[in-house]
């Protein structure tokens, strides 16, 4: 069986700085993978390379078996039109939501469907309402984003990505900009998605979410995957001191059970 995402030898440099130094990663269909690591470890860049928000410097990425880009003289070449098409197959949710403020919630969720996929207005509206229902915001369809709470905005952003019928969903620290009491509603939506069998790659600081939801956890350090495996192993019996330190920092204070 082919993997939903297959990454081989991925490298990415920003001018002199090499952020990713050769990443191999497989994401099976229906799997939820969580990327952990301190800031600067390259986890966000890795995520952004999957849908080519950043163009990799070297390496190959396959989406459900399709190699992205064309090989030319030992290097991968990418055409903007191909990348646009690829991005319709991958959904992405951002830390700061990035909803379009000049459009209503419904228009936000319809925009990509009509403009990029060329669906009819009626079909797009139908799909949009289905996805808004799924994230529990169908009653906010006619509101402008400015009138929503952070958690609601993020759920709309998830609906906007889902409406494109993506093969994979990417989540880039989607709860980091939220008030603590709003984090739960977004994580619950993501849990629901994982249970529905959506293939997901998430960058997050929510270790608890990683433990309970992820099928696989990857710990990135200095542009490489330091440890990867089932959350029980990586999070409870880490092999390296680096991961132990990271986890200790994240669970310094805990409520007694």
């Amino acid at each position, binding site marked *: 069986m082919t993997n939903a995402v297959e990454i081989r030898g991925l490298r990415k440099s920003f001018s002199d700085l090499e952020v990713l130094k050769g990443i191999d990663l497989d994401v099976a269909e229906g799997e939820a993978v969580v990327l952990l690591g301190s800031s600067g470890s390259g986890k966000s860049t890795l995520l952004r390379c999957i849908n080519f928000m950043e163009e990799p410097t070297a390496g190959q990425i396959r989406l459900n078996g399709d190699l992205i880009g064309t090989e030319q003289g030992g290097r991968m070449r990418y055409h903007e*039109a191909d990348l646009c098409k690829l991005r*319709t197959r991958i959904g*992405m949710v*951002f830390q700061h939501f990035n909803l379009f*403020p*000049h459009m209503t919630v419904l228009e936000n969720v319809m925009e990509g469907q009509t403009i990029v996929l060329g669906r009819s207005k009626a079909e797009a509206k139908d799909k949009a309402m289905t996805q808004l229902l799924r994230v529990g915001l169908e009653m906010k369809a006619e509101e402008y984003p400015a009138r929503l709470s952070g958690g609601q905005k993020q759920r709309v*952003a998830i609906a906007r990505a889902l409406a494109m019928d993506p093969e994979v969903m990417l989540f880039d620290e989607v709860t980091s900009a939220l008030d603590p009491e709003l984090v739960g509603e977004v994580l619950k939506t993501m849990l629901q998605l994982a249970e529905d069998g959506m293939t997901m790659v998430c960058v997050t600081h929510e270790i608890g979410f990683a433990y309970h939801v992820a099928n696989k956890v990857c710990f990135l350090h200095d542009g490489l995957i330091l440890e990867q495996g089932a959350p029980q192993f990586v999070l409870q019996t880490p092999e390296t001191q680096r991961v132990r330190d990271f986890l200790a920092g994240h669970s310094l204070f805990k409520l007694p059970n």
Partner: protein
Amino acid sequence: MVVEIVRERLLYEWDFVATLADMDLLLLGLWNTIQVFFLALVFGVPLGLGLALGRMSRILVLSQLCSFIIEFFRTTPPLVQLFWFFFALPILISVQMTPFVASVLTFSIQSSAFFAEIFRGGINSIDKGQWEAAKAIGMTRKSSLTRIILPQAVKRMIPAFAERSIELLKTTTLISTVSYADLMFQANELASKNFRPLEVYTVVAIMYFFLILTFSQLTIRLEYRLAKTGEGTLR
């Protein structure tokens, strides 16, 4: 002696009758001013958008060419430009140049350079995340710009836009120097006819004041109506 002169001057009898009797001359001038102003906006704004997009283009030659045009027309005085378009250009391309055409041409290009910078500022002021979100749902750069970025940017640009348009309106007075019968020109004519420069130029100043005030009130109202979604504006 000096006191006497001052007293005499202070007792200067304002007489607006002669000026107001020829009000139709001034109104005609006002109408001509508005025409040039309006046409310069109609041509200048789209041209400005073009220059801004050109300057932000990834094609180096295009970007540098547009930068040069913008900087050139921003740094040279409009009066020099007007003289150039009126006196020099017709010889160079051997066409007949009327004051009207020269005026519209000068002020369209001149204001487009300033509008370009407003467009650029507006587009740059939009959060990078908006480009990213559009990109992530598979939009091309072009449709990201027209569907997502510009609609937001234009709203923010309105105050800067209004300010620049008012500058343009004031700058149109220069066309009187190439004998186009705008309000300023008509005032000069009238003042030399009725020997009442004080009254004529005072009336004209008041006319400009109210014309500009009306325009800026209109834009403030427009801005207020568009500000509904509660975003900041760019000045």
